[in-house]
């Protein structure tokens, strides 16, 4: 069921990116799609009743650097979280690129409406 809600969020973003005519709204739709995918990846690593995968004194066997079995059995998967952190960084970069393209287009045409941006200008 949560995965279906994730997919619903993705479809909302896709609708916003395809149907809307304002360039800023298209950017918002693309970002909603990216967040839906991030949410899906985070939920893949989730475990019901799990704890955060942060290692502190209680998670190590005394005297060694080995993780205890209780920590390994209850903590959620940290790998999708690292992946999603990288994806957030990349989506920040692509968001800056899209926003600067929008600014340039507005500077050139004076509108955000993509149906009015038709003439090629050099």
């Amino acid at each position: 069921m949560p995965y279906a809600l994730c997919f619903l969020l993705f479809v909302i973003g896709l609708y916003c990116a395809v149907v809307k005519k304002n360039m800023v709204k298209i950017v918002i739709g693309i970002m909603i799609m990216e967040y839906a995918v991030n949410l899906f990846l985070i939920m893949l690593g989730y475990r019901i009743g799990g704890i955060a995968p942060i290692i502190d004194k209680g998670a190590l066997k005394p005297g060694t650097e080995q993780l205890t079995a209780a920590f390994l059995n209850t903590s959620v998967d940290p790998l999708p979280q690292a992946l999603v952190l990288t994806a957030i960084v990349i989506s920040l970069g692509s968001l800056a690129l899209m926003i600067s393209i929008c600014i340039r287009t507005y500077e050139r045409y004076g509108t955000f409406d993509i149906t009015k941006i038709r003439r090629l200008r050099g």
Partner: protein
Amino acid sequence: MKGMTIIVKTISSWVKVLIFLFGIYIILFGHLTPGGGFAGGVILASSYVLLMLAFGREFAEKNLSLPVASKLDCAGAFAFAVIAILGLVLGGSFFVNFLYQKYLPGQALNLISAGTIPLLNIAIGLKVAASLFLVILTLSIFKPDISANKKEQN
């Protein structure tokens, strides 16, 4: 573009130091607690963005100018690559944690531990802070000048 009111200027001149220190804390403790290079770098950049919003773009640019920020950006990326290639040279494989294997074994959960990971965190933090500040500064340079543009094209 001379900034906001005196209330916002006073409060932000107090708060910007705390935000900057918190960003440095997040970067330095990135291998022990949640956080790390990216989160700390964003917090560092947000302190400069607060400066830019409260005092105007010229003040922030005087504080950290565009060429200096660009050089910091390149320095962060260069340090990251150098540490990664040092792993290849000293440890035999790319991104090998050569400090941990040779010099710092058996010191988990201390501030000085985990080998090259804090150094990589610092490099990423420098890179992210400088580049995010550059992004927002570059976006704020834009001034709408539609009428002159249309006159030129018609």
